[in-house]
């Protein structure tokens, strides 16, 4: 479904990504972790073309992201993305957030979009909040709306960039629960997160990044059992101990 081959990216002379290759098969959940600044966000933004890359190839459902001839908006409309800081549109109500893409990009009728939006809000348990503005919701609620917004486009895959790291601890689970459910339904997911509990529960593979490289790309059991690289061991011991 998602395939990266020898992807490299530079900011000026600084190399953010080096020789990154991996695959996410249909229905697979892959967790990406690694220390701050290792290039996780950059990598996941390359997947739907939010960041350009200079070398290598990324394909999503067989379509090349780096090809200048590719219709990027169309490709992106088929890949959902959830950000660390939610990025709901603050000047629109929750429902308007959920219908904008459906109407403007997919060309659905307003009624159809509203119906779909309502169904998704029910699913994330927020239908009572449909006419509120994002600023009136808690962080956990905002992130659930953001997930619903991404799902409103009927994506073939979902990308998550640290969806819980801006949340207060007591709100993390309400978001993870939604994600776990999504994973169990067979959604293809690439998730940057340090929530190893989530990884243990639903991930098929774990990717560990360091200094712009994919240092480890292993099955979940193998990764949590005995990571091959020292860096990964050190990282794991740090985040598992608090």
């Amino acid at each position, binding site marked *: 479904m998602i395939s990266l081959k020898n992807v490299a990216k530079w900011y000026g002379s600084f190399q953010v990504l080096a020789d990154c290759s991996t695959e996410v098969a249909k229905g697979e959940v892959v967790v990406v972790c690694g220390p701050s600044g290792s290039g996780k966000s950059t990598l996941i933004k390359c997947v739907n073309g*939010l960041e350009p890359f200079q070398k290598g190839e990324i394909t999503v459902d067989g379509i090349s992201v780096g090809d200048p001839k590719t219709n990027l908006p169309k490709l*992106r409309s088929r890949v959902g*993305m959830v950000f660390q800081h939610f*990025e709901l*549109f*603050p000047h629109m109500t929750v429902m308007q957030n959920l219908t904008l*893409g459906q109407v403007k990009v997919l060309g659905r009728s307003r009624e159809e979009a509203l119906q779909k939006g309502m169904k998704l809000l029910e699913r994330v348990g927020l239908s009572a909040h449909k006419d509120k503005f994002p*600023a009136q919701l808690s962080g956990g609620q905002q992130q659930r709306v953001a997930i619903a*917004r*991404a799902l409103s486009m009927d994506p073939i895959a979902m990308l998550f960039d640290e969806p819980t790291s801006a949340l207060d601890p007591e709100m993390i689970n309400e978001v993870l629960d939604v994600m776990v459910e999504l994973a169990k339904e067979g959604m293809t997911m690439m998730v940057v997160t340090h929530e190893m509990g989530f990884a243990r529960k639903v991930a098929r593979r774990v990717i560990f990044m360091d200094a712009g490289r994919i240092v480890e790309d292993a099955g979940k059991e193998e990764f949590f059992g005995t990571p091959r690289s020292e860096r990964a061991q050190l990282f794991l011991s740090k985040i598992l101990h608090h």
Partner: protein
Amino acid sequence: MFAGYDFDVIQRSLPYLFRDGMTFTVTLTLIAMSGGIVFGTLLAMMRLSSFTPLSALSGGYVNLMRSVPLVLVIFWFFFLVPYIGAWAIGANEPIRVGAFWSAAITFTMFEAAYYCEIMRAGIQSIPRGQVWSGYALGLDYWQTMGHIVLPQAFRNMVPVLLTQTIILFQDTSLVYVISATDFLGAASKIANRDYRLVEMYTFVAVVYFIISYALSQVVRRLQDRIAVIR
């Protein structure tokens, strides 16, 4: 203290001052404001473009407009617009453009440079993530700008845009150089005809002050209310 002055002249000329003069001033201000904000926003989008020729063109235009005195621009436009218009439509003779439309075009073009800088700051104040999340939904550049970035930028900048408009409102009085009958122009015609300079110019100053001051109070009230809550 007011012996020798005749303040009745004001009352006698009120209809002329307001129906002709103030209407001209207000209409000119509103047209230049709307046109200037639209054109200025386009300039700001160009200026923020990663395509260098576009941003250089816009930057050059803005800097040029901001480095020449407005009076000169008004003056030059008044004489040039008929020729530019003729050239644009391929006519042989200079087209006839009245003082009003000449002024409207001039002020729109001139103010756009200032509105551009305001809108540029407004656009830059919107977090990058908002643009990303628009793109991630599959919106294209114009949709992301139109539905997400500009509405927020505009709302955040309304107080500054209005403050600039108050300055514009005062600056429109410079159309006296092309003998247009704006509020000041109308007052000065009466002043010279009846030889009541002190009375008329005092009155004009008071009116400009009251309107500008009232507007600036409105801006202050708006400030807290209109910004997008995030």
